[in-house]
C-alpha cells in the first residue's frame, strides 16, 4: 500500500482505537470483576469493597452441602460436552464431505440445518421436552439434552466445514489419486491432515457450546442438572461470592480449552509449513 494512503487513514485511527479498547474492556471487564471478587475474604459480600483476600469461596465450592450438586453437574456437563464434541466433529465432517457432491434433498437439509441454528432455543427445548413426554421417555441429560445440544452445535460444525471445502484445493486430491492412492488413503493422508486445523476448531465449538448451553438444556436435562442449570439455580438462592468463584473457575476452564485448541491449530500449521516449505 502506498504511503500517502496510510497518512490519510491515520485520521480516524485514534478515536477508533479508543472505541476498540473500550469495547474490549466492555467485553472482559465484568468477568474480570467477578474474578477479583471471588477472592473476597470470608466476610466479604457480593460487591466491592474487598473484605480481605482469601481462597475461602473456592474452598466452599467443594463442600457439597454448601452449593448444591456442583461436582455432579460439572461431571455431567463435561461428559455431555465430550459426547457432543465427538458427534459434532464426525457428523459435520461426514456432511461436509457429502456436500462436495450434489445430491437430492441437499438444499432442503442445508436450510433446515440453518433453521436449527436460528430457531429460538426455547422452541427446541419445549418441543423435545413435550416429545419425550408424549412417547413416554423420561428426558435425560445424556439423551434429550444431548440431542438438543446437537441441534445447536452441528450447524456451526457444518458451516465451518462448508467454509473449509469451499477453499479446498482439489488438485492435492487429484494428485494423490493419480499416484495410485485409494480413496481411503487419499482421505487419511491428504484430505484429513489438510482440514485438521478446522476440525480442531469444530471440536472446540462442539465442546464449549455444549458445556455452556442453557436455553436448550432447560426442558431437556431431566432430573439431573448440567452445570449452567446449576449456576442458574444458584443465582436465585446463593448470595455469597461462592457464585463468583464458580463463575471464575468455569470461565478459566473455557479459556484453557480455547488456548489449547488455538495452540494445537498453530502447531499443526507450523509442522506442516516445516515439512513443505514451498507449498502454500
Amino acid at each position: 500500500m502506498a504511503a500517502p494512503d496510510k497518512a490519510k487513514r491515520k485520521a480516524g485511527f485514534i478515536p477508533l482505537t479508543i472505541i476498540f479498547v473500550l469495547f474490549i474492556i466492555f467485553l472482559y471487564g465484568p468477568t474480570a470483576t467477578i474474578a477479583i471478587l471471588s477472592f473476597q475474604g470470608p466476610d466479604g459480600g457480593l460487591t466491592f469493597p474487598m473484605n480481605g483476600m482469601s481462597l475461602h469461596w473456592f474452598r466452599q465450592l467443594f463442600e457439597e452441602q454448601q452449593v448444591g450438586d456442583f461436582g455432579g453437574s460439572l461431571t455431567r456437563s463435561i461428559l455431555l460436552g465430550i459426547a457432543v464434541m465427538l458427534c459434532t466433529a464426525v457428523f459435520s465432517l461426514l456432511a461436509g464431505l457429502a456436500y462436495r457432491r450434489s445430491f437430492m434433498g441437499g438444499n432442503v437439509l442445508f436450510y433446515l440445518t440453518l433453521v436449527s441454528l436460528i430457531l429460538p432455543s426455547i422452541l427446541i427445548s419445549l418441543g423435545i421436552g413435550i416429545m419425550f413426554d408424549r412417547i413416554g421417555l423420561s428426558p435425560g441429560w445424556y439423551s434429550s439434552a444431548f440431542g438438543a445440544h446437537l441441534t445447536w452445535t452441528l450447524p456451526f460444525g457444518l458451516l465451518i466445514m462448508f467454509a473449509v471445502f469451499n477453499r479446498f484445493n482439489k488438485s492435492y486430491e487429484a494428485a494423490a489419486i493419480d499416484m495410485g492412492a485409494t480413496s481411503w488413503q487419499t482421505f487419511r493422508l491428504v484430505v484429513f491432515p489438510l482440514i485438521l486445523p478446522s476440525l480442531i476448531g469444530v471440536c472446540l465449538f462442539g465442546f464449549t457450546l455444549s458445556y455452556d448451553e442453557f436455553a436448550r438444556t432447560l426442558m431437556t436435562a431431566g432430573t439431573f442438572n448440567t452445570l449452567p442449570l446449576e449456576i442458574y439455580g444458584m443465582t436465585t438462592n446463593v448470595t455469597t461470592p461462592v457464585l463468583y468463584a464458580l463463575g471464575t473457575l468455569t470461565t478459566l476452564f473455557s479459556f484453557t480449552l480455547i488456548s489449547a485448541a488455538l495452540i494445537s491449530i498453530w502447531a499443526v500449521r507450523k509442522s506442516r509449513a516445516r515439512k513443505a516449505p514451498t507449498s502454500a
Partner: protein
Amino acid sequence: MRFLTANPSYLQVTPLALVILLFLLFPVATIVIVSFWDYNAYQLLPDFIFENYEFLLTSSVTLSAYLKTFFFAITSWLITLTLGFTVAYYLAFYIRSPLLQSVLFVLCTVPFLTSNIIRMISWIPLLGRNGLVNSTLQEINLIDAPIEWLLYSDFAVILAFVHLYTLFMVVPIFNSMMRIDRNLIEASIDAGASAFQTIFQVVVPLCKSGIAIGSIFVVTLVMGDFITVSLMSGGLSASVGVLIRNEISLLQYPAAAAGAVVLLITVLIMLSIMFRFINIKKEL
C-alpha cells in the same frame, strides 16, 4: 438401494439428517400438534381446539410482551450493528499486520465460547445498588442517591444483549469487509469521496450480506430469549420467551406450545425479510 452405492453422499449425510429429523422436525411438529390440545391441571388432553390461540391472541399480556420483545430486538439490533460495524471496520481497515489482526479478532470472539449466564451475572457487582458504578458516582459526588435503573431494568437487559451478542455482528461483517477489494476504497477516495461517503456508499453496500447475517443472529436470539430478560430485569419485564417459560413451569404445555408457534411464525416472517439480502452459501 442402488443410489446409495452410486452416491456416497447419502450415507455421509445420514447422521446429520437424523439429528435434524429427530431433534428439530419432530419436536416442532409436536409443538404444532400439542398447541391445539386441551389440558387440565394434571394432564394433556388430545383434542383439536383453538382456545389456546384464542386466549393468546386476544390477551393484552401477549400484546405488551410482543411490544416489549420488539423493543428489545430493535434497540439491541441498532446498538450491536453500530458497535459491531465500527469494531469490524477498525479491524479490517486499520490493522495492517495480519498477525495482530488475527489476535484482535480472536480476542473479540473468545467470550462467545464462555458461559452466557456467568457473563450476565458478572454485571451484578458493577450495576447493583451498591455496585461499583453507583459507589464511584457517589464518591465523586455526581449523584446523591444510587441510580436504581442500572440493574433489574430494561437498560440492564439491553446492556446484556449488547454485551452477549455484538460479536455475532463483528464476525460476519469483518468477514465481508476482508473480501472488499482495497482498490475500490482508494478509487472512492481518489474520486473525491469523504471518509463517511466512502463508508456509507462503498463499504456498507459491499458488506450487506455480512450485516444481514449478523442481524439474523441478533434478532432471532433476542426474539426467542427468556433467560437474559428474566435475569437482568429481575422479573420486572416480560418478553415473549418469558411468557412461554412461565407457562412451561406451570405445566400448561398446550398454551406454551401455542405461544411458541406464534413466536415461530413471527421469527420466520422476520427471517424471510432478512434472507432476501444474502446468498448464504456464497458467504462461506
